[in-house]
């Protein structure tokens, strides 16, 4: 069974370790916060200028001055802080954020990522994504394995304008957990009930299969 978006988030949550400062992108990554274990200490950073994000506010308590990078109203937890955009990207560029989780339109087998522009069609801008992928040492991409037309999003080379080069370390899709190695996409785990062959079929770039590939443990 291919994973739901919630399940992708659930699997990624297992990559979040005690003591991590984590930046979550818009979309599936945002959901990761819901699945992080209660017994570890993690703080969420949002690049518009907040560290220590909490859940959405209760109805009627939303504050226009307290939002995340997705422009959603949020709350903060005890120990939170607010800061300006320069210091916020200083945290990112200075490698103080331990883990970055973001979505992608395409990832190539050498770790390039494209997620900000479809020439002639969609030009919303890169926001903070280029800063994040250029600096983070630990980047996990959360995405569906194929796009709406059924084309693979794991490619030999990205066809869309890049967001960053050779930066993605791990990919979690609805079908698989994949590590980006210098030889290509290495299949680490399969979604429950999903065969290695169907993952192969859905992957355009080089897929490395090394012995038995276990099913994910959600």
């Amino acid at each position, binding site marked *: 069974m291919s994973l739901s978006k919630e399940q992708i988030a659930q699997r990624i949550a297992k990559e979040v370790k005690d003591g991590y400062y984590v930046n979550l992108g818009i979309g599936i990554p945002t959901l990761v916060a819901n699945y992080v274990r209660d017994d570890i200490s993690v703080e969420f950073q949002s690049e518009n200028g907040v560290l220590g994000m909490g859940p959405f506010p209760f109805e009627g308590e939303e504050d*226009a001055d307290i939002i995340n990078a997705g422009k959603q109203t949020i709350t903060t937890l005890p120990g939170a802080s607010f800061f300006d955009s320069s210091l916020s990207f200083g945290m990112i560029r200075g490698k103080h954020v331990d883990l970055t989780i973001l979505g992608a339109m395409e990832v190539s087998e050498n770790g390039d990522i494209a997620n900000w522009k479809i020439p002639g069609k969609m030009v919303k801008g890169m926001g903070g994504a280029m800063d994040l992928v250029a600096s983070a040492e630990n980047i996990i991409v959360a995405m569906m394995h194929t796009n709406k037309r059924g084309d693979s999003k794991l490619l030999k080379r990205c066809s869309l304008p890049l967001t960053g080069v050779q930066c993605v370390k791990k990919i979690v899709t609805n079908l698989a957990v994949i590590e980006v190695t210098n030889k290509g996409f290495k299949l680490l785990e399969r979604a429950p009930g999903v065969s290695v062959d169907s993952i192969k079929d859905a992957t355009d770039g080089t897929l490395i299969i090394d012995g038995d590939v276990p099913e994910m443990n959600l």
Partner: protein
Amino acid sequence: MIKKKVSTVSEALLGVDNGMTFMLGGFGLCGIPENTISELVKLGVKDLTCISNNAGVDDFGLGLLLQNHQINKMISSYVGENDEFERQMLSGELDVELIPQGTLAERCRAAQVGLPAIYTPAGFGTEVAEGKETREFDGKMYVLEHAFKADFAFVKAWKGDEAGNLIFKGTARNFNPVMCGAAKITVAEVEELLPVGSLDPNQIHIPGIFVQRIFKGEKFEKRIEQRTVRKRD
């Protein structure tokens, strides 16, 4: 104490003219200089270059200036959520330079603190770096990005005093502090304009030296883009 207080938004915008470059604080619709933008619409100044992280929405924020065809060029990091923007960009009416958000912040700060340019890893290997100087430090590649030059910086703060000292609130801080002093003239609109001595010198986010004019905004709508809430248990 050097007084920066002006009484009205029109006094605050004296000298604003066609063809100028403006920096505008805010992230999305959060912490934007609402009163200044309304006045710019009224003034009808045209052919503007605007440096701002976003371009507002169709009927609020910088979207109002776009509707009015006052902007020639936008320098931003993210411009979604704005149909009129997209139309003008695709039709070629509007020139758009998209740059990484951290680069935007640091190019503002560079102007503020007198650094001519900075090296950032953001955008290396992408079209953002095309035509720009790149350089290796310690085995990593960086792009040279220059300090912005602007005529006016328009920022929004929470509290301010007559000496121009500013305090921001929550994530409405965002780009506002780094734009103060990054243009020839910095104009701050505040929710509360207090007498000098009201603010703790230790808690001031931006000292008044970076601000030339400060005024109390008449009205702050503070529109929310994505109202996300949870139900009480």
